[in-house]
């Protein structure tokens, strides 16, 4: 994925820009440039699709070439892409997006239970339910902006989380989590005489476990990426960027911003619903912890880490974070001793003592530090970092575009 940023294509590396003002004003192009996806965008899409589909090959050397983790990359990539449509494009920081992820999971599992193990039906339902839910929450929350908006979304997400644990237990199965079981009605499956005995979600007979599961998620990720790209290049996307840069001016020009924001909120909620549905497809189990506000914080972090407002950033951020989580949390003292094997005994023990609080159980400590370091030193995330590096290579152009370099 990173190669695409490094390509010498001027127009493209420009359109990766962090701020809309940079990214959306290619020289010499009028409004028409916003309306239609340019050729470089399709090139980017092609490279992105290729990179995603070949992940099993080029991620194998770093130990991520197996379907379970790649699925997570793709699913959380979708989640972060959707979150970025709201936060990155319009600047509204929602702290309650996990609610839609959880809703999507519950909806998908219910479809598995009631209708069919077919993943498509479940996903469509998950997206629809999350969309309706996002519409209701967004309709209320978007009456405020800034930190009030963040608190409102947080309040709604916490409400959903608390309710899922208490009163809504008949729907959510409380702490145990919602699961499929052999005694579910599965009306459609029985009607067409193909009751999936193992309770594994499938796509018209193809069981979505292992590699097929990954490729299913990957194709949806590419699709989601394409849609995000189209949104960014549309007038709608332009409106969102305008709201981000100066909402007051939008209002003064007689423009009602709320419908656009609501649409962005619902779309990003639907992305989250899709991600939640996919989580249920790859593992038919839904628990309320997916709705907790730490989960909302996680998606914010992925987006920030990758690069807010960029196209590729959130996907990269999600993958990097899930990868680090996997790697760091699996480390223990034994693994560490092996990792520092090349050092002499005393130094080795010392290094293990230093590093061990940051891995395994302590992975969240690393996460928090990473979070702080990124926000402090690299507010544009990995994408800005790459841009600076590529700027160095091409002379000193990179420095001019780094808005927060040092402080």
């Amino acid at each position: 994925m990173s190669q695409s940023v490094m390509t010498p294509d001027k127009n493209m590396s420009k359109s990766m820009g962090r701020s809309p003002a940079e990214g959306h004003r290619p020289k010499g192009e009028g409004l028409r440039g916003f309306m239609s996806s340019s050729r470089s965008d399709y090139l980017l899409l092609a490279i992105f699709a290729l990179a995603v589909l070949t992940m099993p090959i080029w991620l194998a050397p770093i130990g991520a070439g197996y379907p379970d983790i790649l699925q997570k990359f793709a699913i959380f990539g979708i989640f972060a892409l959707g979150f970025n449509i709201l936060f990155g494009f319009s600047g509204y920081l929602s702290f309650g997006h996990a609610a839609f992820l959880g809703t999507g999971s519950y909806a998908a599992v219910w479809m598995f239970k009631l209708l069919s193990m077919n993943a498509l039906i479940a996903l469509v339902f998950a997206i629809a339910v999350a969309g309706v839910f996002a519409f209701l929450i967004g309709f209320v929350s978007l009456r405020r902006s800034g930190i009030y908006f963040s608190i409102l979304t947080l309040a709604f997400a916490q409400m959903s989380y608390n309710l899922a644990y208490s009163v809504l237990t008949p729907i959510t199965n409380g702490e145990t989590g919602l699961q499929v079981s052999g005694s579910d009605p599965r009306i459609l499956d029985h009607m067409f005489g193909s009751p999936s005995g193992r309770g594994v979600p499938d796509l018209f007979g193809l069981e979505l476990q292992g590699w097929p599961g990954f490729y299913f998620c990957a194709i949806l990720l590419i699709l989601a990426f394409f849609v995000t790209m189209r949104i960014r290049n549309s007038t709608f996307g332009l409106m969102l960027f305008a709201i981000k840069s100066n909402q007051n001016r939008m209002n003064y020009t007689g423009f009602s911003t709320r419908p656009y924001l609501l649409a962005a909120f619902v779309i990003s909620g639907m992305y989250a619903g899709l991600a939640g549905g996919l989580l249920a497809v790859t593992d038919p189990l839904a628990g309320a912890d997916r709705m907790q506000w730490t989960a909302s914080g996680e998606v914010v972090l992925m987006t920030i880490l990758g690069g807010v407002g960029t196209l590729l950033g959130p996907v990269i951020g999600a993958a990097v974070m899930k990868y680090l989580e996997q790697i760091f949390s699996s480390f223990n003292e034994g693994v560490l001793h092996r990792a520092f094997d090349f050092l002499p005994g005393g130094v080795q023990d010392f290094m293990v003592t230093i590093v061990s609080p940051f891995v395994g159980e302590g992975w969240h400590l690393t996460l928090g530090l990473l979070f702080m370091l990124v926000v402090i030193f690299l507010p544009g995330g990995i994408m800005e970092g790459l841009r600076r590096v590529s700027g160095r290579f091409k002379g000193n152009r990179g420095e001019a575009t780094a808005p927060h370099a040092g402080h």
Partner: protein
Amino acid sequence: MDAIILQILNGLDKGGAYALIALGLTLIFGTLGVVNFAHGALFMLGAFCAVTFSGLLTISERIRDESVTFFEAYKEIPYLTLWYGDTGQAIVDWAVPLSILLAVPVMLLVGFAMERGLIRFFYKRSHAEQILVTFGLAIVLQEIVKYFFGANPIPMTAPPALAGSADIGALVGASNISYPMWRIVYFLFSLAIIGMVFAFLQLTTFGMVVRAGMADRETVGLLGINIGRKFTIVFGIASAVAGLAGVMYTPILAPNYHLGMDFLVLSFVVVVVGGMGSLPGAVLAGFLLGILQSLASMTEVKAIVPGIDQIIIYLVAVVVLLVRPRGLMGRRGVMEA
């Protein structure tokens, strides 16, 4: 009726904790313009100051238990008791309130360090970035505490003299209502701290400058007052207030590492309900929401609206923000985007 009084009492101590945290949040927001998501972690650090301090006080020696004659039995007696007899034992018993002695300097230092080391670089950044960096800091702080103290809650005991129940009923002329004494102590304690903060702001020159800074930071700076240094101290004070709230809360709720996060979300809701930047609003909303939460957890209420106890605070926040966007006592022009 008794049940209602009991629930209101229940709400008072929780409300006290909310109010103290929200007070610090509002002070920081009003003066520095920073949204501090790590404030819950400061509350948690305070609680662990108490854990550390009482741990230090109760360093014990294992000695033979003479009262058991059947087999070899040992008991642990704190050195303080061994050395100073009853006085020492009293100090051990009063470990939690005495922890304040440790917590105040420690929390002041933590506050100074936080403001000088991190927060001051974020004055000019967006609120979103402030939220994110302090959120990261909160995670770091709570993981450090988890590393040293483990993940399990550590139960703390109130001094024996204050551990029992008090008969409140006699005071209000109702029938027999007994209520844990420590919770009443906590309520009074929170009132005292709130009173001290307000007195400090209203009666001292320093407080006057701080209030002026809250109203118009730029002008105060132009008058030649080193506002940055004053604000560092304000941050320290807010941090100490949160820490003290945490110290005294330990006998009510055994502290664990994610205590801060649990309180933070609610405290933020409290601040928003009270009105961003309004100190009386924060206090009022803290107690109000604490009491409402307690009332909503009554079985009679839950029978009418199931699950209301889980969501009441958030529900109130949503309603208040939609009906009175500025919060209960919010000032004009503060975060009104």
